[in-house]
């Protein structure tokens, strides 16, 4: 499903120097995989995830997504592809404070081609599935961290992506809340969703079927 070849990401440091954050990344993720990216802080895990999620375009190398050569796509085409295939979960949840749970779930749909009734149906379905119907009119600050992340995941998968990217989804949560989230991931994976998560926890990585180790921008073990 994903094929990275010689992918590199660097930032200019000034004075004509550059710093490499990702080096010569070669990675294959097949459909149905549940990959955990691990590594010390600053290794480039988030950077990799943002590249996979097509938020970051400043890289070189080859990136194939389902045989589509992402590196040849214009940014608009990438955005379309991303909106069709990918969901994103953040460590800090990033729910919009001014919007209710319901409205937060609706955001991704509003940016995709869904009719009003389809949107309502999808949100209702998500609320049902995650058993948060009772919270639909609450604002994020009225929820616990675990509940917020639950919404974050519901929001990420509401448009039925094939690939779910999660950057330390349990990083801000208690271990029991974290376990719930991981159970949820396992279930999603079992239903066929491909997942790439960044995690610092061996235990969380254990929920996946594969671990990719990053060190200073290099894949050292996969």
């Amino acid at each position, binding site marked *: 499903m994903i094929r990275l070849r010689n992918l590199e990401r660097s930032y200019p440091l000034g004075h004509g120097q550059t710093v490499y954050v990702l080096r010569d990344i070669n990675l294959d993720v097949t459909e149905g995989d549940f990959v955990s990216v691990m590594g010390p802080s600053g290794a480039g895990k988030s950077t990799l995830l943002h590249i996979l999620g097509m938020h970051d375009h400043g890289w070189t190398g080859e990136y194939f997504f389902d045989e589509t050569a992402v590196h040849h796509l214009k940014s608009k085409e990438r955005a379309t592809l991303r909106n069709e295939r990918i969901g994103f979960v953040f460590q800090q949840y990033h729910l919009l404070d001014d919007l209710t749970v319901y409205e937060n779930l609706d955001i991704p749909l509003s*940016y995709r081609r869904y009719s009003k009734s389809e949107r309502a149906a999808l949100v209702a379905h998500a609320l049902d599935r995650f058993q948060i119907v009772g919270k639909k009119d609450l604002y994020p*600050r009225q929820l616990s961290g675990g509940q917020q992340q639950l919404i974050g995941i519901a929001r990420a998968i509401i448009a039925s992506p094939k690939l779910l990217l999660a950057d330390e989804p349990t990083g801000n949560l208690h271990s029991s809340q974290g376990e719930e989230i991981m159970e949820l991931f396992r279930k999603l994976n079992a239903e066929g969703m491909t997942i790439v998560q960044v995690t610092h926890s061996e235990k969380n990585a254990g929920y996946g079927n594969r671990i990719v180790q990053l060190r200073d921008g290099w894949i050292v073990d996969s």
Partner: protein
Amino acid sequence: MNDLRFAVRQLIKSPGFTLIALITLALGIGLNTAIFSLINDLFLRPLSFKEPDRVVHMYSNANDRNLLELPISAPRYQHYRDGQTIFDGFGAENINAFTLTGLGDPVQLFGGKVTSNYFDVLGVHPIRGRNFLPQEEDTADVAMVTENFWQKRMGGDARVIGRTIILDGVPHTVVGVLPNLPFSWIGPNAEVWTTKPFAIPGFSYERMMRGTGFLRVVGRLKPGMTIAQARAALPSLDQSYRTQSPDKIDSSATMSLKTLPEDVTGNLRPAFATLLAAVAFVLLIACSNVANLLLVRFSGRRREIALRMALGASRASVLQLFIFESLLVSILAGVVGSGLAWQLVPLVPKMAANFLPFDPETGVSLSFPVLGFTIALSILTGMAMGIYPALQSSRADLVDGLKEGGRGTSGSVRQQRFRKILVGAQVALSVTLLAGAALLITSFVRLNRQSIGFRAENLWIGLVTLPQAQYPDLATRQHFVERTLAALHAIPSLQSATVSGDIPLLAGAGSQTLYSRADGEILPVDKRASAVSHDIAPDYFKTWGIPILAGRDIDQHDVSDHQNVVLISQAGAKKVFGNENPIGKTLLVTSGSTPVEIVGVVGDVRSRKVVEPNDMEFYRPWAQENFPFAVVAVRSGLRVDAVTKLVQSALNTVDPGLAIAIPQSMDKIVAQALGQARLMMWLLGIFAGAALLLATVGIYGAVAYTVEQRTGEIGVRMALGAQTMDVLRLIVNQGMRPVIFGLVVGLAAALALGRLIASQLYQTSAHNPVLLVATMSLLGLAALLACVFPARRAALVDPVQALRAE
């Protein structure tokens, strides 16, 4: 002090905000102070008379014929003077022109012939000598001059009292020197007054006493007497005059009173109201603008407030911090605004001097109370806007404040609503102002395009007053004109020249005469319509460029012992004769019901005011009717002073004792006639421009600042799939919503306020839909641009950076 330093650092940290807030407030303060100072000095400064609001100006009105606020006749003045019990003093002035000889070249002067008590009634004390004495009223040749006259024409002679000056060929003894009098009462050029007020130049005593109005009558209310009581006392005097003098042409008139301040500023009031409203709007826009900026700014710092309080700061100290910051902006703006006003104040009278005959003596100075007021208002705005969000934020839950990551946090819902109201209000105020300006500009364009009926370009005019002694009658004055025209025709560089009795569009142009058809029912004199009458020498229509539409011009046969003839205006012909042919018909004109035969119909002329609709106008041959005022008009390609020299030398060959007064181009008179409208258009245009600019800057500032604060939110939205267009739409939508609201409110306000300026509009409906739509579109477009720029910046947000910054 520490807080102050922190405030300074905060302002320096966001120079964009500081600059916008500063410019906005400074513009509001500067414009307001300048305009208020101007209005204050030019118009609202009290007349330099004693208790001017106790002095009233009496007018005559023929309400049934819609002839309002006319001067008073001599018999009526005398009747009221002898019968009234409401005034302490009751005086009259007969405005007059004099030829001064014996002090260098002959010059034309303006001033009046007054009752002996006139200056006592006004409460003016001479700076030298004395006022006139009662025994001097009817017979004495005495004069009072202004300080200007004394200084300029007599070199400030210490022994001025008792000196003799020659006016219209008659020696007059100077008995007093008056302080310079307010321009708004005496006009631009008046500098000498004599007694013997009851005479109309060119009229016999008998004709004058028929009831022609020519006196400006003033009375000083008795102590304790109110103007309402005085008004109530008038009808019985009106009634007794009517019964005693049933045959006077003004016998059925009714009198009205105006206090002097009302009298001199009354017709400017709608214009003031409009100007004041306009500047107030600008200030309000500026304040709401800054309020909005401060609100956005402070509410974006809830986290900082929460943190400070978590660290032990008291609410008061947090408030103080924010108030310092907004105070600093206000005070800085006050300083810059004062500087701006300082620069603007002397500029506007200079600009206005081209349009309006302002008193050149009037110095305009910065009004400090006004400056204080505007600065206080801006400081108040700053304080309020500092306190409001600080209070709100500091009251908010500490944990909430700390927890908030700033995603989509541009303040609480209530704050956001308040800010939207501010933006909406700004837009509404701007639309109203813009609509008003658009109406005035359109009106001015129409006014400017209005055909005045004659060709003012390349037309020179000058006034010559003919002294009674040398020119006592019709024949001598006719002889003067014949010789003068002959002398002018001999000058090859002049295309054509003529003489007439009045200058169109100048105050009091043309005499009013009563008229009636001679056939059918003949109305009594006091029921007849009134029309402007011009006495004209040959070549008048050619020189002025007025077309003769039917019949003939006057010719050399139209002299005093022939049939009296008249040419009438087209509008008058239609009004009186409808579809009949007026040529050959007879009209009865003047108080003496002189029969005149209509020999021609000419094009309509706006002879009194550009805005006054066309009406009947009479043109009578100078040889058959004339007064001792001769207006020389010359058409040529030469400059004004060149023509003046030529005409003066021609005049010298006829009578070296005569002088030309107010020589000028007719263009200038036309421009001055449009002066007030032009000034209003300019000022309102400037205010509207400022309002548009401020509103646009305000919207831009608010939207840009919001974008800055919502970077995180925008990043999240982009990560969730929002594309460039989605982000643009989000920001523009949110930015434009209060704008649309403001546009609607502004439209309603513009429709409502249209009535306020309706009286100042010429052939322009206050509810002109095209203008309103254009105004709204202009503002809408400006607002859209103001939103699009920051929205574009929002669309360029790099989601990776935005999310990382969290």
